């Protein structure tokens, strides 16, 4: 027991909320379930902030680094002689940071949903699931060991599944949930294999032991080589596959756009701010291992991140469903974070990328949640997701409009909004490492500004559409979270992350490199300008542009047919060319053999009936023949 033992309550409170609300779901009238959930999460949020304060400020001895603290640990299961699964709470900079992010966004979403989900069937169920998610996510970030992380990783996956499939009567919602679950499950397979390899080579799951750069674990990771890379590198790549699945990195991203079928607050919480960054968190958590023993794996991380950010940004420019645009934007931004981790090194200023990644994770959580919640308010007003059904909403939804604009400016990297700072750090880190990656990110920064403002203009500018009823501003429970998050988006950029969250726990000096920052601002402004020209007033320009890039546009609009490719693989190959033959094989070959044996016996039985002809002389003949044969065999042959 130590002074952080109370942190155990942070995940447990939502858990108990989940159990109690979930069990009594049909008995909770009105908003009672929601209120219980919100209250529970409020406490957790408070505790998180308190922890952050305690860890970063009050308990911190100036001049020293931040060390990790095991607040609590129990043995859950003995696996092998060496490997034991523990459950516990680990307090260190990134987990505390994540606590803050998760509880903040989650709390906002809880409040917001009181308005947004009002009157929905299964309101209490929604809150139960939200609490389950919060519990899982908090458990994930507080994990003391890799295996605990995997456990909560799965739980996060299932709560995401439950929330995406919240409107279970809608087939598209359920199939999206299914897709999300299966794709991430597939990724988790990689994670699990990675855990197997890693843990058997190091003999431990524990993060503290694993990530101690001078510890036995890292030292013992020499390992045999397999296909040119060391076994540990393979393990790390496998683990990264798990992270990539959760974080929707190409090519495991296909579930994320579909996941937008879930209620918008869910998208804001899970698919923008928290769960999707779990992959980043995972790599960050194991960062010492990555950087010390598997630089090749980090290269993979960087390139996958870079490619995904570009790929998603391109697609985002063509989508018309506002939530999907945001989803692709999320992918793109997570790509940034991955890239940033990938180019980072361990310790001191070399760890800039690590810091930048976490920084961006933090700011992104704020502004992306804001964007989603804003989009939710819009959808709440017009009952559609499609930007073609929107236009001119700025006069109906003033608060939403302003907060949305702030978020757009933030993501576009316009100072002094927070996005500018975090993105700048990432670009700096990339610049240090690899110029090609850096170039890509520059381009993506411009694209981001462009598509965000395309979105912005399409929603809030242009002329009115035929709305069923006049759109009205959301109620206070929805707008207040917007405002709080807008506040966060604006000011979180000033947090001294380089002092708090670093790869080795030690603070380092960081400053804005204006040689990189100014061009990036310019690129952002350029993107905004293009978007303004094309979309502020409705004109033929977008269509012309689309027509002139028609092939490319169509591919981008169709998300480069990755979905179709997956459908081909799953439906055609797995279902038709594996499962069907397996089922056929089972019925006809395996079972057929068994039945065949039975039928053969029956056949033989039927065909030897002539032996029993009823004729006594034939019987006697067989008798005598038998005697003669026996004499022949046993007297003369044997």
């Amino acid at each position, binding site marked *: 027991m130590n002074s952080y033992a109370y942190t155990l309550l942070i995940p447990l409170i939502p858990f108990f909320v989940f159990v109690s609300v979930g069990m009594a779901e049909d008995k909770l009238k009105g908003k009672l379930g929601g209120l219980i959930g919100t209250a529970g999460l409020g406490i957790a949020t408070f505790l998180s902030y308190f922890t952050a304060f305690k860890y970063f400020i009050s308990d911190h001895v100036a001049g020293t680094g931040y060390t990790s603290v095991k607040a609590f640990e129990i043995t859950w299961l003995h696996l092998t002689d060496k490997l034991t699964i523990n459950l516990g709470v680990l307090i260190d900079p990134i987990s505390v940071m994540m606590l803050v992010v998760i509880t903040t966004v989650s709390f906002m979403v809880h409040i917001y949903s009181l308005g947004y989900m009002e009157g929905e069937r299964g309101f209490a169920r929604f809150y139960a699931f939200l609490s389950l998610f919060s519990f899982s996510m908090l458990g994930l970030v507080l994990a003391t060991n890799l295996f605990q992380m995997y456990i909560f990783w799965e739980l996060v996956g299932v709560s995401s599944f439950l929330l995406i499939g919240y409107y279970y009567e809608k087939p598209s919602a359920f199939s999206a949930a299914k897709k999300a679950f299966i794709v991430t499950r597939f990724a988790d397979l990689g994670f699990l294999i990675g855990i197997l390899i890693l843990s058997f080579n190091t003999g431990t799951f524990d993060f503290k032991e694993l990530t101690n750069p001078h510890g036995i674990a890292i030292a013992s990771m020499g390992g045999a080589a397999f296909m040119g890379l060391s076994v540990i590198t393979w393990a790390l790549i496998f683990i990264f596959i798990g992270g990539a699945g959760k974080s929707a990195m190409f090519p495991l991203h296909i579930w994320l756009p579909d996941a937008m079928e879930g209620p918008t607050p869910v998208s804001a919480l899970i698919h923008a701010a928290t769960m999707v960054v779990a992959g980043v968190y995972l790599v960050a958590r194991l960062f010492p291992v990555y950087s010390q023993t598997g630089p090749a794996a980090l290269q993979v991380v960087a390139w996958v991140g870079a490619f995904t950010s570009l790929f998603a940004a391109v697609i985002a420019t063509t989508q018309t469903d506002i939530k999907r645009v945001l989803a692709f934007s999320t992918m793109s931004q997570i790509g940034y974070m991955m890239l940033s981790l990938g180019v980072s090194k361990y310790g001191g200023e070399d760890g800039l990328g690590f810091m930048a990644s976490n920084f961006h994770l933090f700011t992104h959580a704020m502004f992306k949640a804001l964007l989603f919640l804003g989009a939710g308010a819009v959808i709440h007003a017009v009952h559609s997701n499609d930007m073609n059904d929107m236009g001119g909403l700025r006069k109906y939804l003033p608060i939403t409009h302003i907060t949305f604009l702030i978020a757009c400016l933030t993501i576009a990297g316009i100072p002094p909004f927070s996005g500018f700072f975090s993105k700048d750090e990432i670009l700096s880190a990339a610049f240090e490492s690899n110029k090609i990656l850096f170039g890509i990110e520059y381009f993506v920064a411009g694209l981001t500004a462009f598509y965000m403002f395309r979105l912005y203009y399409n929603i809030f500018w242009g002329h009115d559409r035929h709305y069923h009823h006049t759109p009205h501003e959301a109620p206070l429970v929805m707008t207040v979270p917007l405002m709080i998050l807008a506040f966060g988006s604006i000011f979180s950029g000033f947090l001294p992350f380089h002092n708090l969250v670093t790869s080795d726990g030690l603070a380092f000096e960081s400053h804005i490199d204006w040689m990189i920052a100014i061009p990036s601002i310019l690129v952002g402004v350029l993107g905004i300008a293009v978007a303004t020209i094309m979309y502020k007033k409705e004109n033929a320009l977008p269509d012309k542009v689309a027509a002139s890039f028609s092939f490319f546009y169509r591919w981008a609009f169709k998300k480069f047919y990755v979905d179709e490719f997956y459908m081909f693989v799953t439906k055609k190959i797995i279902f038709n060319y594996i499962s069907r033959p397996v089922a056929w094989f089972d019925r006809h070959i395996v079972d057929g053999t068994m039945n065949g044996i039975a039928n053969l016996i029956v056949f033989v039985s039927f065909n030897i009936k002539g032996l029993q002809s*009823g004729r*006594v*002389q034939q019987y006697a003949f067989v008798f005598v023949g038998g005697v003669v044969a026996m004499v022949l065999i046993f007297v003369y042959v044997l």
Partner: protein
Amino acid sequence: MIDNIPLNAFLVISTLMFFIGIYGFLTRRNLITMLMSIELILNSVNINFVVFNKFLYPNQLHGHFFSLIVIAVAASEAAVAIAIIINIYRNFKSIDVENLDQMKF
């Protein structure tokens, strides 16, 4: 007085008779002739017993008595067999063995 006739000569005769009897059993269609074939078989066996007794083990009369008993058994067997055959004749108006295949397979 029989010293110059080898034992095997008797045995060959009895064996041939035995198998002739079996041949009769396998080919005669009339139940009574089948019964007669049986008598041939038993008779050949009797010769065996007697010859063995006389030639090889004359100190006891095992073979002799065996033959005696076999004759008695043959008689009782024949009695029952003929009773059944007559019964069959009453039922079928025939004693052809080929008719006796009501039950088969």
